[in-house]
């Protein structure tokens, strides 16, 4: 080796070391920059839209919404300056008006109650009983996260619609038909389908972390089983039930596809109206309404977080309570009663959770003359021969996969970098955490609207007009939806890693980025893959932001295609739904096999 070679090698080594040293801060800065461009700037645009009318700052749009009985019902009179007593009187009267916001809160409340009522028994079953398939049922509770809501809506149509399986079953026994769609109860039940597993998931985790020793101590001190439950178990699971409820309220308050599909415009929520106002190009009112919605959601979340901070009970290193067999060991009332209750629950849960999916699959392969593949055939024919204004199924599938892949390519590295940033200890970490997780709380409508107004329509910077292609905006919106889930899955795993592994690597000479690459990522790779699958599935199922950005363009995805079919042709909609189900199920299997246990939601 010559001196020149050696010097060359050393320069290269030094260069590599310099790159490795700076790559993590660089990636962090890049992630923040992406976040600003695809989230904070667009959301700011929405705010500006709402307060800047014809070049002047004004709160007119907000005042208009707050004092309009159409939105706030009787409460609007309060904001308009009527006496509170008169308003309360009106609210208590029989023909009170709720307004759109009031109705949204009303259906969210009903949905929350339904979700808790259906979720807590499942948590009881999963936490306290042993039976074959318990683990499977438990991991299935994560499924709603990746099931596209529009597909669930199709499933509800196939079950409860005029020609659905429910009416077919009723007809067999000479009853019916019943007309359940559109109706408030359909919306509430669909929301329960979605959120009861979430409540169950959170509550089960809390129930399993109750220390058996604490219960046994209470029993040995003289408390009966019920008293021990009330004094020891309940205080530890109640905050989790409340958390599940608060999250359900926020999710269902901002609900869009389910209401759009199952409620029609007669039962419109705030989100549906925002969508409609945008369609009418009334951006100021739409933006103001979206912000009012955001304020209410954030208010509920903040209230919950305050409660959680004050009521969290840490029980580390607990030994979980033993599980009981599902088959009663003796036929006493004490053993039988809860099991009979669970059996009744199982029937309801089966109808609610299995029927929509099964009905959708069945509807996709059945016609007036028995089993058929005509609906799938229709999809293929439409792809071949559809007019340019019609939705082409193949294009929708292709768009979904391309957007999913592209969104994943952004969301995954961003999620991993933010996970690293939020698991290290430094001043300002809380702020970074909040800034990075804010997209979880902001509805797709706002993100979509902001991207549309801010980036797709273009910005003027120094005489240059910068406009982003609609497809890119959709990818950006999907990445914003997906990366917080990557963080929620990867960050707990990184947090659980022994900090000294990284310190050992660094003491051995590895720069921070190398330690991440060599030590941390190989050890959490199942979580990284699970996060990737999650981000991909969310992108494939995303409806709200896509609906805003894809309207009137050829960039429709599978959920958008389903929504366009749903009103006219249920068959093709269900066939499309099955395609979507297959894609998301593959993602779900990946999530489940590789680390769905620690999803921090």
């Amino acid at each position, binding site marked *: 080796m010559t001196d020149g070679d050696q010097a060359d090698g050393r320069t290269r080594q030094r260069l590599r070391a310099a790159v490795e040293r700076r790559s993590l801060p660089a990636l962090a800065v890049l992630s923040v920059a992406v976040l600003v461009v695809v989230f904070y700037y667009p959301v700011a645009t929405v705010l500006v839209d709402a307060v800047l009318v014809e070049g002047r700052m004004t709160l007119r749009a907000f005042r208009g919404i707050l004092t309009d009985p159409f939105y706030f019902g009787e409460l609007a009179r309060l904001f308009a300056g009527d006496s509170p007593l008169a308003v309360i009187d009106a609210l208590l009267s029989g023909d009170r008006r709720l307004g759109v916001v009031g109705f949204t809160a009303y259906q969210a409340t009903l949905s929350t109650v339904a979700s808790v009522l259906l979720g807590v028994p499942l948590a009881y079953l999963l936490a306290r009983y042993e039976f074959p398939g318990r683990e499977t049922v438990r991991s299935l509770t994560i499924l709603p996260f990746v099931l596209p809501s529009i597909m669930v809506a199709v499933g509800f149509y196939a079950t409860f619609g005029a020609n659905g399986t429910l009416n077919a079953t009723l007809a067999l026994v000479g009853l019916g038909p019943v007309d359940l769609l559109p109706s408030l109860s359909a919306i509430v039940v669909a929301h329960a389908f979605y959120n009861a597993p979430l409540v169950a998931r959170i509550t089960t985790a809390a129930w399993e972390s109750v220390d058996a020793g604490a219960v046994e101590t209470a029993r040995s001190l003289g408390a009966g089983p019920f008293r021990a439950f009330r004094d020891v178990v309940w205080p530890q699971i109640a905050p989790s039930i409340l958390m599940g409820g608060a999250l359900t309220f926020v999710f269902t308050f901002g609900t869009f596809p389910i209401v759009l599909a199952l409620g029609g415009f007669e039962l419109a929520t705030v989100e549906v109206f925002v969508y409609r106002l945008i369609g009418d190009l009334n951006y100021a009112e739409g933006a103001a309404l979206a912000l009012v919605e955001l304020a209410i959601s954030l208010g509920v979340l903040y209230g919950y977080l305050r409660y959680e901070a004050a009521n969290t009970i840490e029980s580390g290193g607990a030994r979980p309570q033993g599980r009981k067999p599902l088959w009663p060991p003796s036929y006493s009332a004490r053993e039988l009663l809860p099991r009979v209750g669970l059996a009744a629950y199982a029937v309801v849960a089966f109808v609610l959770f299995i029927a929509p999916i099964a009905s959708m699959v069945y509807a996709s392969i059945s016609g007036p003359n028995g089993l058929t593949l005509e609906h799938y055939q229709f999809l293929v024919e439409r792809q071949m021969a559809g007019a340019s204004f019609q939705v082409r199924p193949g294009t929708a599938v292709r768009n979904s996969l391309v957007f999913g892949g592209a969104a994943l390519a952004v969301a995954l590295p961003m999620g991993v970098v933010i996970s690293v940033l939020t698991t290290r200890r430094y001043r300002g970490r809380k702020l970074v955490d909040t800034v990075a997780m804010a997209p979880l709380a902001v509805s797709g409508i706002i993100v979509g609207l902001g991207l549309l107004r801010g980036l797709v329509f273009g910005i003027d910077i120094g005489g240059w007009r910068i406009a982003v292609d609609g497809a890119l905006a959709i990818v950006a919106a999907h990445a914003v939806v997906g990366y917080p889930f990557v963080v929620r899955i990867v960050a707990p795993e990184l947090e659980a890693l022994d900090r000294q*592994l990284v*310190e050992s*690597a*660094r*003491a*051995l000479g590895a720069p921070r980025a190398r330690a991440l690459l*060599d030590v941390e990522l190989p050890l959490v790779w199942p979580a990284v893959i699970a996060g990737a699958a999650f981000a991909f599935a969310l992108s494939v199922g995303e409806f709200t932001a896509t609906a805003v950005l894809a309207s009137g363009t050829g960039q429709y995805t599978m959920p958008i295609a389903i929504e366009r079919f749903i009103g006219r042709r249920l068959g093709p909609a269900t066939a499309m739904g099955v395609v979507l189900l297959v894609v998301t199920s593959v993602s779900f299997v990946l999530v489940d096999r590789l680390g769905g246990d620690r999803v921090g939601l």
Partner: protein
Amino acid sequence: MTALASDPAVTLDAVTRRYGETTAVEDLSLSVADGEFFSLVGPSGCGKTTTLRLIAGFEEPTGGTVIFNGEDVAGVPPEDRNVGVVFQNYALFPHMTVGENVAYGLNFADPPGGASDDQRVAELLELVDLPGTQSRDPRSLSGGQRQRVAMARALAPGPDVLLLDEPMSALDAKLRERLRVQVREIQQELGITTVYVTHDQEEALAVSDRVAVINEGTAEQVAPPRDIYHRPASRFVAEFVGDNNVFDGEVRAVTDDTAIVGIGEERISVGISDREGPAVSVGDRLTFCVRPEVLTVPGRSNRVTATVESAEFLGETTRVHLDWADHDLTVRTRDALDGDVTLGFDPEDVHVVERRN
């Protein structure tokens, strides 16, 4: 203070580390000579591990400076400090084999002495008495073996300083004793500067050239093991290191080589001939200590009569707890003691810990 030929390998100069309101290390100064085996010992939470992490560069001091070979290393990241670290839980990379673990540091530094990476790994595993284990999964090893792999991994790139953070505390007592001898032998063979953190004072005394006893973030005493044991510089050191009987009393009379100290009605002769520092005079308050093993049964010039309260049989000796004029007294003896006994000890075996006037 000893004059050193060159700069010390590691110097802490008035180092302080605060976390918000709490102070882990406060105004700590010490220096470790090149090739020295230096131990930091103290109760849990005393700041000894923080001190080690400050040297390694995992933490930066909030005050004072850390100096390596005369150079301030403020802002130098751990990967550039050329230190080897062994943690209590070993922190072996679970997704790598033993060989890959040991070789990891060679990604960033060439093996010393121009050996190839493979040669270096083999050499290190030989050194820690685990030859031929390159392809083993670290999870299949016993605790003691893992600890030695961690040691080999830390030594592979040829660090200037070896930092050991309670490396034995997860192991059982017998293994700990065997391994500490091995660690000391390796350290001597390589002549590597070593900073060893432990809460086990016996371990620190057994292997170190010098020991720093840390309490509440500051060094109470820095000295060779024998001085730490026989000549504790503070009440804390006297009580923390080994069993001890510590008393407070007032000087009643002074001769050339002894002081007569009164504890209530009792009188004890205390040897002061080898004492450094200001002379002892009548009226001073003294804190002094007598090790349990020097209290023997037939009396010497100091005699105390005490009552046996309880005894712990430890095998080679028995630790006996006695009551002497309402003071607790501990004795180590091979004799069976019971009832009232008279014990004796020489004034030279009494060490003055603190003096106040």
